[in-house]
């Protein structure tokens, strides 16, 4: 009798332990999806800020005589590129709405600010372009964690009864596809497909393929934006960053 109870107890312990691994993997998947969607939204919002910064430069430098550089209270960054950013603390921030419901009090603060790293001159060259860092300026990074943890809580009532998939792990097929959905190509010289469609490597008025580098007036002014979404707020490796290159077409 005692042996029987022991066997059942050990079996239950194994189940609980394995299910913990399983749900941890699920939570990681959920966090990754949150991070990806938020990162892409942040980068897109910053692209629009860059668009404004470019317009300020173009407007300021189109006056006669052309003064060069940026107006008062603006900083040209990266140096040499036509982007004028507001040089005031907290000016270049975007806010990302997150889920907020009465049922989720941890999400009571519904906006998360992302700001350019102060001072705004913090820049670094990657490849042939210059990038601006964007980092989350959180007082409550836990909000994002809470979104995932709520999912875990929702599922936890059966975590203790898990038996299936003792080896743990999320649907490996889904994992593999999540990894394959993106094709980072920031390393090495990109190629230009000139055989399928008329991509003339940045010819003026080229509608289909865009180019950043080149003589002014014939190509776009580009800027690289990168954002760190790790919960630690530190991205020690280049591949930890989300990178987004945007171009502002000359008019």
């Amino acid at each position: 009798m005692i042996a029987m109870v022991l066997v059942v107890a050990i079996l239950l312990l194994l189940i609980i332990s394995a299910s913990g691994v399983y749900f941890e993997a699920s939570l990681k998947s959920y966090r990754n999806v949150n991070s990806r969607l938020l990162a892409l939204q942040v980068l897109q919002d910053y692209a629009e800020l860059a668009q404004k910064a470019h317009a300020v430069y173009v407007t300021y430098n189109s006056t006669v005589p052309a003064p060069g550089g940026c107006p008062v209270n603006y900083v040209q960054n990266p140096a040499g590129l036509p982007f004028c950013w507001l040089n005031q603390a907290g000016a270049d921030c975007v806010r990302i709405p997150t889920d907020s419901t009465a049922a989720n009090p941890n999400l009571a603060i519904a906006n998360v600010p992302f700001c350019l790293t102060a001072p705004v001159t913090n820049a670094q060259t990657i490849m042939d372009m210059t990038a601006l860092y964007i980092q989350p300026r959180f007082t409550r990074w836990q909000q994002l964690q809470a979104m995932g943890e709520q999912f875990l809580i929702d599922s936890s009532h059966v975590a203790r009864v898990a038996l299936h998939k003792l080896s743990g792990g999320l649907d490996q097929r889904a994992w593999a596809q999540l990894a394959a959905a993106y094709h980072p190509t920031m390393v090495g010289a990109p190629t230009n497909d000139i055989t399928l469609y008329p991509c003339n490597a940045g010819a003026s008025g080229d509608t289909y393929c865009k180019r950043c580098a080149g003589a002014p007036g014939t190509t776009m002014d580009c800027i690289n934006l990168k954002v760190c979404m790790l919960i630690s707020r530190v991205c020690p490796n280049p591949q930890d960053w989300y990178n987004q290159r945007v171009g502002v077409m000359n008019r």
Partner: protein
Amino acid sequence: MAALAIGSVAMAIVGTLLSNMIEQFQTTNDRLDAEAMANRAQTLLQNVFSQAVDVQDTNAGTIPAVINGGAPTPQPGQILSFGVNDNFSFKQISDTPAAWTTLAVFQREGNGGDPGKLTKVGVFYRRPEATNPNTMGMIFVVQSNDAGNPMTPSTAPGLTYSSEYIDRVTLLEMTKHRHPNFDKVVSLDVHVQVRYQMGASVGLSWCPEADITAATGSCKNTVGRKNIDRYFTILLRNNLVHPVTTNMASTAVSSEERVLGDLYFFQASIPPGQ
């Protein structure tokens, strides 16, 4: 003797509990897979559609083959829509008589470097079957520049389980939003419904709810199931509103215009595994 009886009762109780636990866990396991797939639907479709570079709004109910070939003259991409409401709706099996439907074919920006590089994209839907309820609804996304194989369900390169896909789909709706002045798509509302099954002993069914209610074919209401609905909007931020050779409607300025004005987005680089 008494100990044996007590032990037997205890084992019966434990066995019942374990059986119930297993069933509950399998339900939760399937739900987590479905949640992951719903998330994937949003991120995958967002990724490809937001990078589309030239998608017109007009569509006559099928995706014409001319887009598939394309070269040497670029042809605008199209997203499938029925009727005048600019939407595609699959709520029941009879909505798409053919098993396979081409949802969209277009060119997308596909390079994070300089210069950009375009990649052809085909999005296909394989609907559930009334005669075989075990057939899942699936969305396939094929990305290839293989000009020799047009983007059709029968010839698209790599349209297999090795390509990117979303399964468990029992309902799919897409509504396009047109630019007010030009025949171009600005954004796309998507409603995807994925399903998970409940319990271990019941059968599987992937028929749309409408067909289960109507008992279409073999779509019987004999299985435990729940559906997860995911609604999201995709901004076609890279879509060409008008080329540089066309003046804006309100000005005489000749400049290229995209959905976010003069912004052009190269392919984002995502951390591996994210």
